């Protein structure tokens, strides 16, 4: 069972990595055979001619920007929602929660006009703000649960010592919340890195395309011109950062989930 699932999970990665070295004819006519020669040029073509390099950097800027902003904004809100009683607390929490259930299509056209009126179309800033806004429901939901599980004693001791609310948050709670932040960070990174629908509408400038847009672009273009090898090389390149990020942070991700203990 274990090995069956391992094969089922691993072979697509192996297959895509191997196919990236093949010619179009090999991909279509003998998809499960090994390549006759290793065509490194597929990667060079994908990175340079197909602009995967450009899309890659665009993605990195937008995703990292949105990630930092999401972590700051959501940890502040989640901390307050988890640790302070005030009128409207529950309503605000539910308000954020419903955001997880909205089909994104519903918002696309109004969102386009909003960004146009704010002069944020096809800009890094616009995408960063929108990515952040759409990451908030999950992030706040998760971090609120997380902050609730943290021991209160240390914070209270700090208050007795004269620390301000902000000081407690910054010097005491945030360091303790690190595993949770890492977990939220990873999930958002995966979601944002593969985000496809939002940039298609809000990011119409090919110079600013992010990776999923660029790959879809390539998929359509290469679909017409049967240059599948380059497309698959591009896909392979796009998988690497998420895979690396996951392998590096995997331990901490699990720890974040353990402490977070989503007891909804």
């Amino acid at each position, binding site marked *: 069972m274990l090995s069956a699932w391992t094969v089922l999970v691993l072979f697509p990665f192996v297959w895509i990595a191997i196919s990236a070295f093949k010619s179009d004819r090999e991909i279509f006519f003998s998809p499960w055979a090994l390549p006759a020669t290793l065509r490194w040029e597929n990667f060079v073509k994908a990175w340079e001619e197909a602009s995967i390099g450009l899309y890659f950097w665009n993605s990195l800027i937008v995703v990292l920007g949105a990630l930092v902003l999401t972590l700051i904004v959501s940890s502040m809100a989640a901390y307050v929602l988890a640790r302070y009683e005030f009128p409207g607390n529950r309503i605000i929490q539910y308000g954020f929660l419903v955001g997880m259930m909205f089909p994104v299509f519903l918002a696309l056209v109004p969102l386009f006009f909003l960004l146009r009126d704010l002069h944020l179309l096809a800009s890094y800033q616009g995408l960063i703000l929108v990515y952040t806004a759409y990451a908030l429901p999950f992030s706040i939901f998760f971090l609120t649960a997380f902050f609730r599980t943290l021991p209160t004693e240390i914070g209270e001791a700090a208050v007795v010592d004269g620390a301000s609310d902000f000081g407690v948050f910054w010097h005491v709670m945030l360091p303790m919340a690190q595993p949770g932040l890492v977990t939220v960070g990873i999930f958002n990174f995966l979601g944002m890195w593969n985000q496809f629908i939002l940039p298609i509408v809000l990011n119409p400038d090919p110079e600013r395309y992010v990776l999923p847009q660029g790959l879809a672009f390539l998929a359509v*273009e290469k679909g017409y011109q*049967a240059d599948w090898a380059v497309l698959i090389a591009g896909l392979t390149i796009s998988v690497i950062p998420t895979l690396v990020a996951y392998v590096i942070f995997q331990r901490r991700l699990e720890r974040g989930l353990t402490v977070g203990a989503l007891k909804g």
Partner: protein
Amino acid sequence: MGEHDGQVRVVSRRRFLGRSAAFLGSTAAFGILQACAGRATPSSSAPIASGGPGLSPGASGEATNPLGVPAGEPLEVVIFKGGYGDDYAINAEKIFNRVHPDTKITHLGIQRLREQLQPRFVGGNPPDVIDNSGGGNLDTAALVAEGQLADLADLMDAPALDTPGETFGDTLLAGSQSGGVFDGKQHVLKYASFVFGIWYSDSLFKSKGWQYPKTWDEMLTLSDEIKKAGISPWTYEGKNPYYFTQIFNQMIWKHGGMQTYVNLDNLEPNAWKQPEVVNVAEALYQLADRGFFLPGTEGLTNTESQAEWLQGKAALLPVGSWIENEMKGLIPDGFDMVVQPTPSLDASDKVPAQGIQSGAGEDFIVPAQGKNVQAGKEFLRVLFSRESAKFFAENTKSTTVVLNSTEGLKLGTAFDSVITAVSTAGPNLLDPLAGYVVWYNKLVTEVNNQMASLLTKRIQPAEFLGNIQKVADQIAQDPSIKKYKRSA
């Protein structure tokens, strides 16, 4: 620049005749001549009404600018970057700037036109000219219904850019633009010409001694023979059998004549139950019933089915003539692909067997709300020039609707067979991208969906047509969908 010799003569003659010539014939050669000489054209910035007098360069105001492109106003071009890429459009933009050097052109090559451009139409700031093509194209009929597309009448009547003495409209393949006419107005111009037909490997057929049939009975006999030889007779893009829908249309048109086909376009009551339509549906069903399809075809995309066909696993494939360009990396040497029209259903067919669907794709539109509508039209005048069309043919190995633009080009067996098919067809040409196919996306989607079921024997011909008729009736009764009519 030898081929411009004729134009030089024209220009000299015009100089002699003076301004009046500008009203009579082709004029744009002047701009090209100037560009060849490496000179800017000051006249291009002059508005049409104030072209200078006499024989000074300013005199050619009307000559180089019959559509009155405003000076110094920017132009935004959006091109669907699919099978043809967008090099040809960039080339046309260069020519445009030779004629109008002070027009700043913004070029955008994209693919998902719906998501990117629809909000701009809603917001009233669409680009000036669009190649509305590809799987994610905008619904032309809806755009027309909302008055979003400029009437291209003045462009059609304007002098052609580099064909002296002819209007723009004269230089286009006869009948190629009928699908772009809505309620009598030309709203769309199609660029890349193609035929829909049934393709096979000429070398395979020769080696087996097979003959492409003239009638459907012969087609069934041939299919049987192919099957006996251990090859699947047919395959098609099973997941979305749009090309089969087109074959279906071609056979309806031939069997029943144009009136039968137009009845479908016009959503006439029970049009899909006309006896001729029933006959064709039953004929197609035979292919499924006799097991003539490559097993598993219904799970293939267009590219996948074409790859199977190229490997010789299936003999016959319905598709359009872009196939050679689309699959160029995968075509085995000596495959020699050729196209033929659908066979006659029987002796009662109204259109001879050599009739074929010949149409054009890459739908160019000029948004009515664009900031520079006239420059958008002028871009099309440039793009559809012979010089630009020749570049397209060389660059994409495909033909355009522009007459006399491929002389001396060698483009392969597929291309040659297309030329033969069209010339054999003579006047018997059907535009596959006209009528219900472009007016009612909902209807053509339904035909494709039902076709998938018919060709896998999940429904019988009667149910197939009944289901389509139901949707046709719904559309006819739905006040939110704009209706169009045409006559045979």
